[in-house]
């Protein structure tokens, strides 16, 4: 089996690469590429994302055919895809960071700034917070409810269909921190930086 981490100049993806390689050991091949043919032929895809919604979408669009290839992979062929942080946010129809930007539109909804209640809460939401699992998700196999995950973000994904939400976390409001819709998975937190429990989530995705 091979898992491709999409390298589309979306910022720092070293930690994602390191964590997947650590989990995969020699059982699974981890590719890091933006090569469209390699993405097409892979069994699973990881879509990381750092920086702003706009900068990530721009970076995707900068690579000819990449968005189409990802659409084909996740929507047409329904192969497993995991979005991390802004990678998850890009599933939305629209994002409001920097300026209004069209997303991939895989899961209806929007990405808007976390309401920090008139500066009562600090932004970014940085650090360890507990996830409240509200729906069985295959990537949460053997993950205890209220496990701690590492977050760093100022924007949140608000899906229209609440049934896609697999967990939330409690900050200034109830923030969506993971989604699952058919073959599409996303985490707002960083499993690659969430210690052993995060690696377990990565392992669950690889083992799907």
């Amino acid at each position, binding site marked *: 089996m091979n898992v491709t981490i999409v390298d589309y100049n979306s*910022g*720092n993806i*070293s*930690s994602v690469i*390191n*964590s997947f*390689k*650590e989990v995969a050991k020699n059982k699974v091949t981890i590719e890091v590429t933006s090569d469209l043919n390699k993405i097409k032929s892979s069994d699973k895809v990881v879509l990381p994302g*750092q*920086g*702003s919604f706009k*900068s990530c979408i721009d970076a995707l669009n900068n690579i000819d055919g990449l968005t189409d290839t990802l659409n084909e992979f996740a929507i047409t062929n329904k192969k497993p895809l995991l979005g991390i942080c802004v990678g998850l946010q890009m599933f939305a129809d629209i994002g409001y960071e920097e300026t209004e930007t069209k997303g991939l539109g895989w899961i209806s909804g929007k990405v808007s700034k976390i309401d*920090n209640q008139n*500066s009562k809460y*600090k*932004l*970014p*939401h*940085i*650090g*360890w*917070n*507990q996830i409240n699992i509200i729906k069985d998700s295959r990537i949460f196999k053997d993950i205890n409810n209220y496990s*701690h995950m*590492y*977050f*760093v*973000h*100022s924007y949140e994904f608000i899906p229209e269909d609440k049934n896609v939400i697999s967990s939330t976390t*409690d*900050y200034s409001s109830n923030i969506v921190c993971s989604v699952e819709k058919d073959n599409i998975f996303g985490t707002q937190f960083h499993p*690659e*930086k*969430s*210690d*052993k429990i*995060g*690696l377990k989530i990565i392992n669950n995705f690889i083992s799907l």
Partner: protein
Amino acid sequence: MLKKRIIPCLDVKNGRVVKGINFVDLKDAGDPVEQAKIYSDGGADEICFLDITASNENRDIIYEVVEKTSKKCFVPLTVGGGIKSVEDINKLLNCGADKVSINTAAVENSKVVIDSSKKFGSQCIVVAIDAKKNGDKWEVFTHGGRNNSGIDALEYAKQMEDNGAGELLVTSMDRDGTQVGYDIDLMSRISSKVNIPVIASGGVGNLDHLVDGIKLGKASAVLAASIFHYGKYSVKEAKDYLDSKGIPVRI
């Protein structure tokens, strides 16, 4: 609820830990990779490396250290010391650092913070402020505390937030190394002034100081070096203590 973070900091010089943990079973007490691993296994919420390498010819060693550490530690890794340019930041992030901490360069050239936070995102840009009290205000120092910029630390903190910093690492130079506790007044004033998280640093001598930094200093995270280095307290003991004082921590 978001937890308060405990961040052990390791001083690294020429690729070696300067003040290390004194553990009997440690194979190589000077190896930053091994020490970082001990901290992350012990429950550290993040790890911080401060590169204090003075000579230019040894400056590249830190990249190797970061690369090795990031393959072993799966909690956030912040690296600071000697960062001058967006290119330096790019190199550290590519080696596996999750955040960089910028000190002198942020004072000398505001573009470094503006450009790097645009390029890599605010989440990986920490501005380190070394502040020293002068009368009723605090001034920002650079070059490892040798030069006084004369800049007001509170104004500067706000400016760095506007420039795109994701967090501020505030060190009281008056308290650093004294083990008498954080400069609570400084921490709480900066924390109230900005809307980004503040990491308190400088002066920790016991676990009550960590509690004060969070409760009185309003810090989102507390950084400490020597209390962990010399095995006076483990990260676990620190967390248990904070927990007993009603501070939310990841246990």
